[in-house]
């Protein structure tokens, strides 16, 4: 076992460099909030746990309902926040705008200023969404970005980019995949992927 071969448990380099200024600031503010009894450590932990528990499955439920219930879809496009709350999803302060893709219009969401994302429905954003490259290129050359995500659009499909610069958050309502007539909401929800609700992709096919 140990005769000159690399040990199977080679030490992995620590992923902990020196703290950044922002990390220091966060630790200091957290310590102060606890010390001043404004928050408890358990409340902070619980909030982090709740944030981590949100996932694209919530958004997929909304999309699947909109695909099967035209009245719900109309309410969702009119007031995204209220329609999601109807399904029991806690939206908090999120003001949601739902943008509907059709065979003629494809929607794509980006936040060029930072990383605004509909966390209440999709959880934490993926790293690429926060990258400077995606943020800069999604507005300037959306079709090239879409192609890199494997999404080929015909030239006559309109691309509508939504830059999430202020108080709204955006969810794409993708086109319902063909061949799913009569499917249950649960089965449809499995086709509504995270990336299709950001708009870099389209849903899975039936």
């Amino acid at each position, binding site marked *: 076992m140990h005769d000159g071969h690399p040990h199977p448990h080679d030490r992995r380099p620590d992923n902990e460099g020196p703290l950044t200024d922002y990390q220091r600031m966060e630790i200091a503010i957290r310590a102060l909030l606890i010390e001043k009894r404004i928050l408890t450590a358990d409340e902070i932990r619980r909030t982090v746990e709740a944030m981590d528990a949100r996932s694209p499955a919530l958004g997929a439920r909304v999309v699947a309902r909109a695909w099967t219930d035209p009245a719900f879809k109309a309410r969702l496009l009119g007031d995204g926040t209220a329609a999601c709350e109807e399904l029991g999803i806690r939206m908090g302060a999120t003001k949601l705008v739902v943008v509907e893709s059709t065979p003629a219009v494809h929607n794509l969401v980006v936040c060029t200023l930072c990383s605004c994302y509909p966390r209440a429905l999709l959880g934490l954003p993926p790293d690429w969404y926060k990258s400077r490259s995606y943020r800069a290129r999604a507005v300037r050359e*959306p079709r090239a970005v879409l192609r890199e995500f494997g999404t080929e659009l015909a030239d006559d499909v309109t*691309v509508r980019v*939504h830059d999430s610069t202020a108080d709204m958050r955006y969810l794409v309502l993708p086109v319902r995949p063909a061949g799913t007539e009569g499917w249950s909401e649960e089965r449809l929800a499995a086709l509504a992927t995270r990336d299709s609700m950001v708009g870099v992709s389209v849903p899975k096919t039936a």
Partner: protein
Amino acid sequence: MSPRFKPGDAVTVRRAYPPGHLRTPHYIRGQAGVVERICGSFPNPEELAFGRDGLPARPLYRVRFVQKQIWPDYRGAQADTIEIEIYEHWLEPATEGKTHA
């Protein structure tokens, strides 16, 4: 504050570069577009960022721009658009004769 613009109005984004925390991306300053919807009124983030209350709340709009007008080398359909949230104090009525979305 009641909104100064309504959906369909042609507007121009102010071409200004003040210091501070701003939510109006550089690439859209000076560009002409059309109000897509009124989002409501929100405390001014330029004030909130410095610990002030941001009141009175400012009307916020979604404005639609034509991509080919924003990026001269844009590769895509003529109808492609970009929509951005912009606070009222960054918008002016579009000047006569200017082409817009």
